[in-house]
């Protein structure tokens, strides 16, 4: 019997993602991949995977999945959500597990992830990963072109996601101190490549204003609402050129759009600036209505920030530690169980 997770309810927009599909942009293939690659890596680290193994990206509202494997180790990192494990056939009351912590689930148990808070996305990683063939070198889902992931689309009820590993490895569960997911006070940008298509006043507006994230944002681009940017006499149309991760394109209405994981490879609107790579994961976490302001930095600063983020991720990987359950301080339970058994255990330990 193959090991799998069965989708009971899919959540709002749950897709399989990894670190993306670079190498095919010259054929028009977007890179895709996890929006918040810090939380994505954390989820993988918690279940003992390599950092780039495909995991489920959950947006806003999590899925409910039933375990069709002897056991499976999972972890959820990113936005916080109520994560409940219901026993088979709803027997018993179930248990609640914590994000940023690994957990082992057994056959028939049902994992239910609720509404996210603190971030627009969270990642559900499984030990060993999903047994889904990569397309063009990646498991990432690009729904627009139906490439990769599970049948090229977001999950639906009754989908069966095969697991590479039939059962969870025997080991202790681990925990990560939650990474600081707070958005930066100012998102750092490098001006260009077409900042010369804007008036000096428009560049001042961009750096001095606060924008808010529009509801019309998706994995392709984050649309911003706020003061429009005025184009110079050169206008907003350019002869199409390449688009980078974080490119801020400004169409005729003057409102910036930050291009994210599923961005098109080329485009014909001018791009005033590019968000630096170190600040991209925090953008992926922003929910509609979130406020966002920008600060211009030089390219050396941006590259140094990329190295800093890599070293922060390495430090995070090194900070994984076994879960230690705090002693319960409920007085009644202390009297009923812990006090007595604790004495016995202490003695037993000494005799062994």
């Amino acid at each position, binding site marked *: 019997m193959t090991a799998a997770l069965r989708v009971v309810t899919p959540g709002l927009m749950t897709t399989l993602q990894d670190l993306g599909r670079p190498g095919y942009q010259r*054929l028009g293939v977007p890179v895709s991949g996890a929006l918040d690659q810090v939380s994505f890596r954390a989820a993988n680290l918690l279940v003992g995977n390599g950092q780039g193994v495909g995991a489920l990206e959950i947006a806003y509202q999590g899925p409910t999945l039933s375990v069709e494997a002897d056991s499976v180790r999972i972890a959820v990192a990113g936005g916080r959500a109520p994560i409940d494990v219901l026993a088979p056939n709803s027997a018993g009351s179930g248990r609640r597990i914590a994000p940023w912590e690994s957990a082992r689930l057994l056959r028939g148990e049902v994992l239910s992830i609720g509404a996210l808070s603190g971030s627009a996305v969270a990642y559900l990683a499984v030990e060993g990963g999903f047994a889904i063939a990569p397309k063009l070198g990646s498991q990432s889902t690009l729904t627009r*072109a139906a*490439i990769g992931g599970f049948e090229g689309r977001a999950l639906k009820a009754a989908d069966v996601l095969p697991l590479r590993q039939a059962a969870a490895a025997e080991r202790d569960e681990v925990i990560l101190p939650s990474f600081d997911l707070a958005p930066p006070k100012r998102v750092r940008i490098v001006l*260009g490549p077409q900042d010369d298509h804007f008036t000096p006043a428009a560049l001042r507006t961009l750096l001095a204003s606060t924008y808010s994230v529009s509801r019309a944002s998706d994995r392709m681009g984050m649309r911003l609402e706020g003061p429009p940017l005025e184009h110079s006499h050169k206008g907003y149309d350019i002869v199409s050129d*390449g688009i980078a991760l974080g*490119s801020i394109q400004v169409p005729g209405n003057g409102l910036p759009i930050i291009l994210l994981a599923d961005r098109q490879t080329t485009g014909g609107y001018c791009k005033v600036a590019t968000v630096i790579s170190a600040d991209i994961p925090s953008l992926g976490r922003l929910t509609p209505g979130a406020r966002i302001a920008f600060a211009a930095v030089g390219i050396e600063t941006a590259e140094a920030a*990329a190295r800093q983020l890599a070293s922060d991720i390495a430090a995070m990987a090194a900070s994984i530690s076994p879960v230690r359950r705090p002693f319960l301080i409920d007085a009644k339970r202390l009297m009923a169980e812990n006090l007595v058994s604790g004495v016995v255990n202490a003695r037993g330990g000494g005799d062994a």
Partner: protein
Amino acid sequence: MAPPRFLPAGDTALVVEFGDRVDRGLSARVLALAQKLEAAQLAGVVEAVPTFRSLMVHYDPLQTSQRDLQRAIAPLLQGLEAAEIAGRRWRIPACYDASLGLDLADVARRTGLDPAQVVERHSQTSQLVYMMGFLPGLPYLGGLPGEFALARRENPRVKVPKGSVAVAMSMSVVYPQESPGGWHILARTPVPLWDMRKGPPALLAAGDQVTFLPLSLREYELMLAKAAADALVLTPEGHHP
């Protein structure tokens, strides 16, 4: 010719810009640099994406820096004018019947030509694949005569059928799959332009030359059935130069 400019696109991409027009000379230099860059195998370069007038070099800031990359690319800019871009020559069958070429009559009206002239001029002009973009496998073809310098449609279609051949701004695109789109649809090809089972999955590549072979509706339907049975294989007619 003006020397190319280096422009930053954040800390993961560097733009090498040769100009701001759609122009075969500019495009030849972009494609020549793309070929030299690929051969050079520079450390930290993830991939390079040629467009009409610039090359976007995507890089990993943990492995290189924009400063080092500019130093490494500068010597590659020598002698690009003389480079000849090798490409394949294709003749792509397409049906211009009004049931598939949804805007043929409208384009005829806008260009002042009759529909047969539109078909003749569009199909017989050798068009260059300047770049691929927008969708996986979608080519931007340039070189149509001036009558085809049309603005995009005022009301873009929500769904352009797969295989549609469409024009605007003296260029053509072919939609490899159903997609929204604002160009004027002249024809439809039964040939798949994108097949994930193939390596590379895109039929066309920047630098290729394309003409179209007009099909009757019946020929189109037969070829479409062959394509559905995986029995339609289009091979290039040759190479250029």
